[in-house]
């Protein structure tokens, strides 16, 4: 920094602090919502309230208190990119009169007593400095409509914003609302949307958590918050996300989606459509050869790299900003599709997609992935066919950044102490302050005094805040001693204002005057349980710390979709200890409660208990996303990830004791349930069976009474299920066999091969039972294994002859490689015996479950009856990269599958290892007929 600048900067500072005070305009005390929760509870000592304020008001940012101190400054917004989101005019107004412009702000007024000229000079320097941080704003234009204002208002007033902030019609709430300031003057639509999507980025203090909004929701809320920008006359119109796309429909023999193929063609139909879909209005229902061109704008929520994927049948090409991003051209099926990357700035970009259909199936879907966005179908909310009214910040002065002022002010930023709270790289705070323990609380010219000295930060503290801080300061010497878990939990929950929504141990909870702001999304009557966030008393004894982690930070494991108020996601950095603190606080006093136990093979009993023919849990609980029959209680498939086993057992035994007034009934009155078929209704075996069943999580077999949307999951409960369907990776002539023993397999009647086997859930028939029935589906369940490729039997007349196997691409057409399918018979338990003929050998294959529960073994029984020729016939036992013989007749395949082989007439079976494709080894048995008969048995366990 040139010395001249430094001199001027310092001169400026001197002027500021030397001038006489002039104004004492009315101001509101800083609003720290958690402080009010503690104060109103009547359960927390005044000193502890004050201790909260010392952190929340950043007192300890200047008044150091040693590295061991338990009181940490909250911090303040990250100003790195302040210039890109805050208008110069707002900065000027706000820095001049922070407490007047944003009553209740926790930022102290540094210039409260400065002379107007000096203040104006200093503010001007600060404005240039802050604008230089990523600014100034260029092209500050977004677009909105009154409808979007309404949408945004609805979201703002339901998703949880008003737990801390004021609703549109502000009232005098018992817990004051955190101020927003004049946002319409302060910011742009894109900047505010970006902030709402990721508030922790700008406000690392974490006091403003992420409400897990979608980009479109964030945008609607931002439009609502900036709604005054729509009230001013504006001639411009800008693309309006959510208005879909324009399409033009052509009928011609397309074989490519290249845009030149569409040139010169006259569309048969044009119009608007919500998203990229072939289901456009006016398309001929049976048209088989057509093309569609979609045009419009895409709204990009944040700067960054975006990946777009196009799945289409047939070809499609996607362009953004007139650049091809994805070319999935040509005649082909939907899968796998293609993808491409593009780096985009936040805002609007022209988008175009051309698609054609050349007979057969027709479908189109576009996906995206980007900063903070998981792969998902491109939301309709970001597409624009038409425009809305332009929105620019009010009082948006033209501003020319003076780099010299900005540069010079950097030092001032440090010396004034701004840097103590607003951390900026290479800008340490250079403002000295006394240690917390050395403060004179009685000094009338200090922060706590009635006449804060010019140059010192003025917080406009209320008298009760001052009392609380004074009380806390008396303990300052002991701040090196950590609080216990209970106290720390209170402190952290107050800082993050968890108490705005949740009550815990008599502190906080929705105050009566904000109660009506909490809504339910459904009409089912759950009373206040359907509106208000849950009570957190004892939550540490209920939820596993891992579950609390996922709930607090990762937007997971939420079980109350009917609450309009969303559980926000908090800063991991700031709140990482809370799960363990709650556990420590709540489990300390509870002893002697046995946990619910996992009992081997009890899954099925649990399944029976849960379903409509058992205790009927499904009346209130859904599972795996399937909705409950009645009111929407927590999903059963995530219970095991959430709750502690000992809590689960206590909960089942007496729900009302843990949560007074809960709707969960008590099923074991006097120790017995009404379902006597399991353990005569006894509590422990039934509770354990339930717990065992719930442990399966998403792998659980769907309870009786529930159904998944677009799913026809078949549950082989009492009988063997044999079902033909299109099965992924197997072929169009798949025959599935589902067993009540929870082991299942699928036979390919084209190639005479048992193709796959698995445990757990069976199969979803929706691929052939819904829509036009032409979709293939993979097996459900777990531990899916592929049995050896190629047919089970083959005639090999030389050592070099490979095991017959079709090219996988031709799998759909491969036929009769292992013989000719003759059908199947069912035994009296419904087990099928498949029959197929290879040359003149008739093969009967009976596959049976051995054992039960989730590790059952597949037993394959073969009976061969030969005609005239019995030569050179081989059976393929197993295949893998590594085949280890453990004992005679026992092999371990690739360290995973165990194979037991039994051949009639051979005490230890004669086998050979042959080379398969790509380094695979094949374990084969030459089939020896005795009296034209051969019997082979293989047991496969994994």
């Amino acid at each position, binding site marked *: 920094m040139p010395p001249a600048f430094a001199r001027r900067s310092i001169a400026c500072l001197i002027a500021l602090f030397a001038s006489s005070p002039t104004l004492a305009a009315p101001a509101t005390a800083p609003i720290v919502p958690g402080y009010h929760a503690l104060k109103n509870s009547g359960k927390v000592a005044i000193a502890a309230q004050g201790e909260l304020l010392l952190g929340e008001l950043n007192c300890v940012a200047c008044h150091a208190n040693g590295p061991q101190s338990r009181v940490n400054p909250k911090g303040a917004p990250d100003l790195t990119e302040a210039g890109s989101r805050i208008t110069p005019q707002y900065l000027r107004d706000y820095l001049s009169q922070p407490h007047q412009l944003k009553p209740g702000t926790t930022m102290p007024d540094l210039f409260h007593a400065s002379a107007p000229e000096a203040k104006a000079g200093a503010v001007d320097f600060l404005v240039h400095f802050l604008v230089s941080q990523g600014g100034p704003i260029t092209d500050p234009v977004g677009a909105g409509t009154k409808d979007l204002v309404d949408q945004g208002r609805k979201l703002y007033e339901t998703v949880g914003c008003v737990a801390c902030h004021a609703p549109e019609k502000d009232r005098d709430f018992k817990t004051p609302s955190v101020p927003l300031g004049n946002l319409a003057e302060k910011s742009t639509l894109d900047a505010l949307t970006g902030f709402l999507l990721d508030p922790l980025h700008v406000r690392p203090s974490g006091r403003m958590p992420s409400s897990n909004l979608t980009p479109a929701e964030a945008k609607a809320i931002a439009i609502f918050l900036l709604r005054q920008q729509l009230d001013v006359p504006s001639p411009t119109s800008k693309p309006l996300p959510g208005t879909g796309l324009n399409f033009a429909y052509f009928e011609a023999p397309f074989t490519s989606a290249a845009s030149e193929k569409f040139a010169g063609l006259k569309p048969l139909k044009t119009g608007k459509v919500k998203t990229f879909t072939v289901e456009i209005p006016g398309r001929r229902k049976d*048209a088989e050869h057509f093309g569609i061109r979609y045009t419009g704008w895409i709204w990009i929520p944040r700067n960054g790299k975006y990946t777009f994927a196009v799945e289409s049948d047939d070809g499609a090409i996607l362009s953004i900003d007139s650049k091809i991003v994805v070319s999935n051209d040509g005649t082909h099926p939907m899968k796998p599709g293609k993808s491409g990357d593009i780096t985009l700035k936040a805002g609007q970009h022209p988008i175009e997609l051309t698609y054609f259909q050349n*007979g057969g*199936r027709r479908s189109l879907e576009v996906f995206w992935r980007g900063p903070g966005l998981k792969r998902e179908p491109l939301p309709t909310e970001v597409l624009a066919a038409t425009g809305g009214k332009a929105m620019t910040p009010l009082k948006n002065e033209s501003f020319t950044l003076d780099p010299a002022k900005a540069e010079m002010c950097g030092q001032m930023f440090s010396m004034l102490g701004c840097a103590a709270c607003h951390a900026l790289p290479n800008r340490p705070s250079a403002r000295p302050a006394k240690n917390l323990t050395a403060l004179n609380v009685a000094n009338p010219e200090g922060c706590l005094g009635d006449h804060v000295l010019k140059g010192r930060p003025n917080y406009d503290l209320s008298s009760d805040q001052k009392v609380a801080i004074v009380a806390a300061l008396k303990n300052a010497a002991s701040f090196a001693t950590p609080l216990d878990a209970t106290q720390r939990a209170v402190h952290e929950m107050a800082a993050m204002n968890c108490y705005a929504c949740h009550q815990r141990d008599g502190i906080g909870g929705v105050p009566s005057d904000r109660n009506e702001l909490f809504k339910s999304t459904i009409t089912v009557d759950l009373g206040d349980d359907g509106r208000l966030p849950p009570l957190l008393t004892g939550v540490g004894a209920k939820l596993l710390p891992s579950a609390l982690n996922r709930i607090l930070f990762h937007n997971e494991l939420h079980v109350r979709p009917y609450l309009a108020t969303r559980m926000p996601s908090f800063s991991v950095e700031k709140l990482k200890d809370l799960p363990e603190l709650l556990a420590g606080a709540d489990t300390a006093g509870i002893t002697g409660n046995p946990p619910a136990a996992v009992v081997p093979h009890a899954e099925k009993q649990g399944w029976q208990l849960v379903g409509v023919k058992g205790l009927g849990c499904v009346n209130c609980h859904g599972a795996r996303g399937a909705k409950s029959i009645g009111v929407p209680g927590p999903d059963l498939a995530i219970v095991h990830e959430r709750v502690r086993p000992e809590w689960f057992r206590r909960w089942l035994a007496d729900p009302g004791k843990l949560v007074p007034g809960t709707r969960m009934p008590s099923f074991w009155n006097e120790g017995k349930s009404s379902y006597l078929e399991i353990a005569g209704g006894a509590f422990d075996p039934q509770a354990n069976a339930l717990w065992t069943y719930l442990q399966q999580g998403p792998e659980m077999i769907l309870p009786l009474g529930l159904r998944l949307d677009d799913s026809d999951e078949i549950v082989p409960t009492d009988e063997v299920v044999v079902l*033909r369907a299109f099965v992924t990776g197997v072929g169009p002539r798949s025959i599935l066999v589902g067993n009540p023993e929870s082991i299942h397999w699928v036979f390919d*009647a084209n190639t005479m091969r048992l193709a796959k086997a698995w445990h757990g859930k069976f199969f979803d028939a929706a691929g052939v039972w819904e*829509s036009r029935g032409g979709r*293939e589906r993979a097996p459900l369940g777990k531990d899916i294994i592929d049995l050896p490729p190629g047919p089970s039997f083959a005639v090999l007349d030389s050592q070099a002859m490979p095991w017959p196997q079709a090219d996988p691409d031709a799998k759909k057409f491969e036929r009769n490689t292992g013989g000719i*399918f003759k059908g199947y018979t069912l035994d009296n338990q*419904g087990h099928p015996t498949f029959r197929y003929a290879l040359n003149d050998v008739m093969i009967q294959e009976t596959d049976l479950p051995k054992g039960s529960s989730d590790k059952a073994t597949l037993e394959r029984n073969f009976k061969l009856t030969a005609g005239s020729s019995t030569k050179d016939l081989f059976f393929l036992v197993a295949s893998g990269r590594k085949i280890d013989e453990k004992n005679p007749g026992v092999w371990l395949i690739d360290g995973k599958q165990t194979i037991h082989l039994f051949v009639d007439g051979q005490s230890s079976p004669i086998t050979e290892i042959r080379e398969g494709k790509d380094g695979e080894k094949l374990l084969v048995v030459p089939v020896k007929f005795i009296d034209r008969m051969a019997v082979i048995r293989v047991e496969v366990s994994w």
Partner: protein
Amino acid sequence: MFNHMIRSFAICTLLSTLARAEEPKTKPATAPTPIESKRAEKETPPTGPEEAYYKIIPIPLPPELVLEVSSLETLPDGQLLIGTRRGDIYLVDNAYADPIDKPKFTRWATGLHEIMGLAQRDGSVYAAQRGEITRLKDTAHTGHADTYETFYDGWGIKGDYHEYPLMSHFDKGGNLYVALCLTGSVGSESPFRGWFFKITPDGKGIPFACGVRSPGAVGFNHLGEIFYTDNQGFWNGADNFKQVTEGSFTGNPTGNKWYDEALKLNPAFGPKPPEPASPSRWHIEAAKFPTLIPPPVMLPYKKMGQSASGIVCDMSDGKFGPFNHQLFVADQSHSNVARLGLEKIKGKYQGFAIPFRRGFGSGIVPMVQAKDGSWFVGGTNRGWGSTGTKPFALERLVWTGKTPFEMLDMKLQADGFELTFTQPVDRNFALDSDSYDLSTFTYIYQSSYGSPEVDKTEPTIKDITVSPNGLKVKLTVDGLVVGSIHELHLDGLRKAGDGKTQVLHPVVYYTLWNRVDP
């Protein structure tokens, strides 16, 4: 013919076992439990002017079952067998009651892949599923099938939803006929898509004809000749009612590529199916290619329906009313049924189509006539929408005993048409040429999808005579057009006696391929 066939069967012990659940010889693992429909499920039958003559009786279905009826068959004792798109076969008891009360549904077989045809013979049930025809038996007499034998599987499937096999009932010789829908209804990506197969009683498949696009049913006329419905699309300007003979070509050349493969299975098939010119007309191409049979009846698109499906020939000798030996074709999209009358002129079938009954509950797919003359009609509209709003339905259609005032028959003459009515017409109205409106049009026979109505003309009715008994009206017409549909409106006709009653269905469409020589 079909009922004759059934009656000629010896009563089969197995099927009566199925029907009456005799004492099983071995203990069944799980005895099939009939599922009763509740009386409360009974529905209000549709009403309308047709209802007075032909009554639709909705058969209440057990609410827990998804019975998307895609095939129907009756057993020798009259018991109804239904096959569903979900692959189940149910026996239905008490299906004939009127008013219908507590029909019983017993699952006899399950796990098949979209059943598009059911036929029974010698104690076995034959079901056409996507990949094969399966012969099912209840060998252990447990009341449900325990043997699922692959009877014929000589065609290919690749997982495409359009690759349906539409199967007939048995003909007199014990043969089955299967029409194989094209891949995606446009291509022939799996073997023999677009072909028509005959399956002999010993399970041999004979490539029988080629030219199929998207079939809706295969049936027979009273003589046992074979017909099928083929849907509007490529090479079908409208939905067509087509005849099939061995070695014939029914119009869509997409499946021709399998000809060499077909010759291996049926060396006597004859010459390669033709590659017709496009755009053209059916009769022009038929004149070039002797194996091309123009559809005996074209069903005007939208006017009569949009998705021709089930076929019934009335074999009831009057138990179903006055239309003995006439043919009936259902429409899946319009949930209605048309009546067809054929005549053979110069060796080729041609004839008329007239609306018969509308208001069925779902999209009709199969229909079957029972021994008592009544029909069972099954429906589903999954994947293809229908006027009938129910997702699936099973209905019985019965003649009330009342004969509607209706055009019974329409025959071509050298110089015009002779119309026969079910009841005498009022002479004054019948002799007035303003009572009629006659026009012609046809469809382009082309490789692209569908066709507009083209070649429109307006022939003149030069003379009208009425038979003394008032049952026949002869229209002498100047300007009959070979290759066209003759659309004749009869709005002006009245019934003799009251002079008020109109013909119940006052429009008929006659497809004219050949003129009658004078």
